[in-house]
């Protein structure tokens, strides 16, 4: 049943005030032949008790396996306070802060978020969020084309470590505007860009660099940023925000720093939740702020001279500029930004650094354990962050199936995307994993290898 409060008496009085005989009369402007009788594809209503039972049953089917998958979404401890405060009705059931005086809570939260994320990325301005990291690349590329008018090209070059799904999404969103997204070559021993294979005649509008890379390695970002800037290309960085507690901020890469930075905000207090809702963050140098898509919050004063917050630079946006807007984005991911702001406030820089260092250390321990098994070796020589690739002497899919049957999600199978790397598996162990968890994974893997070796012998 819908959640409406009308008593029969209310309905009668309201119809009388309208001057209608029945509710059906209110639909008399709809052509009769278009009206339908019932919705056979929608089941009968459930009470809250019934739907609770149903959803618990469904949840149980999914279980709670031990997860060692990263590949763009990362399991981290989320303090209880994050979602307890975020789901307060005043945040949860508010809308876009168009009436600033009645939305100071959301607006100040976004302002504080903008401060934290610009600090982490080492850039000047941030917007209030984009949908997710992948679609963020599309928005960043379109922004780069607007901001870099000196270069006529619509060609965007991607470092080899850019998440392949990001490339697909950016192509789907910007392809019809003539933008192309091509990969630079990978050095397959190192798992990073092959600098020797760079084409010095390239004149892209932008170069995109992901750090850490999709395969977990760390790129020589300074060198690549300078190469891009020498070619008058803008640099778009993609960075995992957790990693920025330890790694050099994109705004400080190379001589001049990255121009735009985007990424998946999910690691900052947003649950994995089958892929969303997450949020994309975007920061840039001050010079490009007017080309930025999406909402931006600014601090100003009210009639009494007191400090207050409001949406600003709205002349960039679709509700004002229509066809000339910087993007069609309207609703973004406000609630997730609220969660991320609370998460970053609770962890602070020292806490976030501990999370990053522990994740790095756990992944190292896991990799050390796995490569001690005959038939498993490290795929790459470059240093890695909290994710790393290992090569197996047998198909990855069958190993993952066997692990999954004992409640371990063993990682992400890279062999479909990079067949040239062989049977490569990408593993990730964040701070949520204990030494016992890591041992259990390595033991299960050893067991699978031993059993199938015995079978084939």
């Amino acid at each position: 049943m819908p959640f409406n409060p009308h008593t029969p008496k209310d309905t009668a009085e309201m119809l009388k005030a309208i001057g209608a005989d029945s509710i059906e009369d209110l639909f008399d402007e709809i052509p009769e032949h278009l009206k339908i009788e019932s919705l056979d594809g929608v089941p009968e209503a459930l009470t809250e008790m019934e739907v609770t039972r149903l959803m618990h049953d469904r949840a149980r089917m999914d279980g709670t396996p031990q997860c060692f998958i990263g590949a763009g979404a990362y399991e981290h401890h989320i303090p209880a306070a994050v979602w307890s405060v975020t789901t307060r009705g005043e945040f949860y059931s508010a809308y876009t802060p168009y009436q600033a005086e009645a939305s100071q809570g959301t607006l100040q939260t976004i302002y504080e978020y903008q401060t934290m994320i610009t600090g982490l990325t080492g850039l000047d301005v941030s917007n209030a969020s984009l949908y997710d990291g992948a679609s963020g690349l599309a928005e960043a590329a379109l922004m780069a084309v607007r901001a870099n008018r000196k270069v006529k090209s619509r060609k965007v070059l991607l470092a080899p470590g850019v998440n392949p799904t990001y490339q697909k999404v950016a192509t789907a969103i910007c392809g019809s505007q003539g933008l192309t997204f091509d990969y630079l070559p990978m050095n397959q021993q190192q798992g990073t860009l092959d600098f020797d294979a760079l084409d010095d005649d390239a004149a892209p509008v932008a170069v995109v660099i992901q750090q850490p890379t999709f395969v977990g390695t760390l790129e020589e970002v300074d060198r690549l940023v300078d190469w891009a800037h020498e070619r008058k290309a803008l640099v778009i960085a993609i960075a995992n925000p957790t990693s920025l507690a330890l790694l050099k901020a994109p705004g400080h890469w190379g001589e001049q720093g990255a121009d735009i930075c985007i990424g998946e905000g999910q690691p900052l207090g947003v649950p994995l939740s089958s892929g969303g809702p997450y949020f994309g963050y975007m920061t840039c140098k001050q010079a490009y702020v007017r080309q930025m898509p999406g909402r931006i919050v600014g601090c100003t004063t009210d009639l009494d001279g007191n400090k207050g917050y409001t949406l600003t630079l709205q002349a960039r946006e679709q509700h004002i500029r229509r066809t000339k807007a910087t993007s069609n984005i309207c609703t973004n991911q406000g609630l997730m930004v609220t969660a991320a702001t609370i998460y970053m406030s609770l962890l602070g820089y020292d806490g976030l650094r501990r999370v990053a260092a522990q994740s790095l250390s756990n992944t190292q321990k896991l990799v050390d354990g796995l490569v001690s098994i005959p038939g498993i070796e490290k795929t790459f020589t470059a240093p890695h962050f909290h994710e790393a690739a290992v090569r197996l002497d047998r198909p990855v899919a069958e190993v993952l199936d066997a692990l999954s049957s004992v409640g371990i999600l063993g990682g992400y199978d890279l062999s479909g995307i990079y067949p040239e790397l062989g049977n490569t598996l990408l593993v990730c162990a964040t701070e949520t994993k204990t030494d016992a968890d890591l041992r259990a994974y390595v033991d299960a893997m050893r067991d699978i290898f031993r059993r199938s070796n015995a079978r084939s012998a």
Partner: protein
Amino acid sequence: MTIKDQTIFEKSRDGRRAFAQSPVDEAPVDLPESMLRTDRPLLPEASELQVVRHFTRLSQKNFAIDTHFYPLGSCTMKYNPKACNTLAMLPEFIGRHPLGPTSHGQGFLTCMYELQDMLKDVTGMQGVSLTPMAGAQGELAGVAMIRAYHDARGDTDRREVLVPDAAHGTNPATANMCGCIVKELPTGPEGDVDIDALKQAVGPQTAGIMLTNPSTLGVFEHNIPAIEKIVHDAGGLLYYDGANLNAILGKVRPGDMGFDVIHMNLHKTFSTPHGGGGPGSGAIGVGERLLPFMPIPVVGKREEAGKAHYHWLEEEDFPQSIGRLSGFMGNAGVLLRAYIYMRMVGRDGMRRIAEYATLNANYLQARLRDEGFELAFPTRRASHEFIITLKHEARDFELTAMDVAKALLDKNYHAPTTYFPLMVPECLLIEPTETESKETLDGFVDAMVEIARDARENGVKYKEAPYTMPVRRLDDVKAARELDVRYVAPEDDAA
């Protein structure tokens, strides 16, 4: 400045921390020096209580559905049932990795498959893809599919998208993003699309038309059968902007009106939270012709050993797809909330949503009209929303739509949508939704009457309202000119 107005950064003290929230010891980091950060980014240093109190207090500076009537036209600010959030946040659901195997996701996937089916039924479409992450992304998917459809037939000159002048700003912005040319259609005096202008506008260059029905003017488009015929006869397709789907749920379906593609705003019609500006969810539905072009992934179902198995349909299943729009499968957690809501509302409840949303809007419209407010379209029924124009009040006693909006805040009502659609002068677009009671609507009418009377009879000016909010009216010009978009600590300021 009092402590309550401070930012979290001003409340920070060096060395303070929520100690329970991160590993006790810091693991050693063995990475090349050149890759490490040397500066200390500005993040708060605060105790857990300080953080909780800071953000709880901030939340209390918001208007929200849970605390206030929020008649924001076009936004469908209805009650968000608590069960939807509680159940979508069960540990198994929020812990599930998007790339986890489907063997550990049958519960979630079953819900998604059934959601696709229910959405197909309520819209009268043949296929649904849940991946678009907001209405504007659903629009982008829709226009991209229309383009892909024409291109696949070798009909590559169809690049013009017709958009009524009253449309949401996202419509023209989206068509532009898809590399199409926007052609605006004028609106007639009764709020319908000008049919003669439409006949003139269509041709071999027409990719399609983007319509909202009921329109952004709050009225049902009378001429929809004629529009459908004109556009289809010209070889174009019809796009339905689902922003106003709440008005017709269970009564009439976009598919039956002849639309080829629709996006739904699940955060409006199906009551997922607006969250202070998202996350939304812009699931799309398509008719037969656009099925091959749907964005991926889509949830499929097959029988395995007599048991249903749900799985992802991807590139190989939809080789003509417009592609992927998100890193994984869209705003999954929002989709779960919409699923739970739809199961609680049920078959008959869908129709009742439209009925009571329409009853509330027509009641509020009648009451305001009887109190002397001018309706923008006085001869028309309201749909789930309607427009009043304050052009006389603005001319005769300087009471603008903006003034009324701010004065309403002082009376504890969130303002309706103001100055949209742009074509109606000094307008308020009012959408009460089905979840509000008669008493609330009557209270809102009283507030409106009081504001107008005080302006008319007592010369009260609301230029400086609101008075009772956490801040007074804000200086937007200063905000744009002296851009201050992040907090800078005083010592950094000096440097």
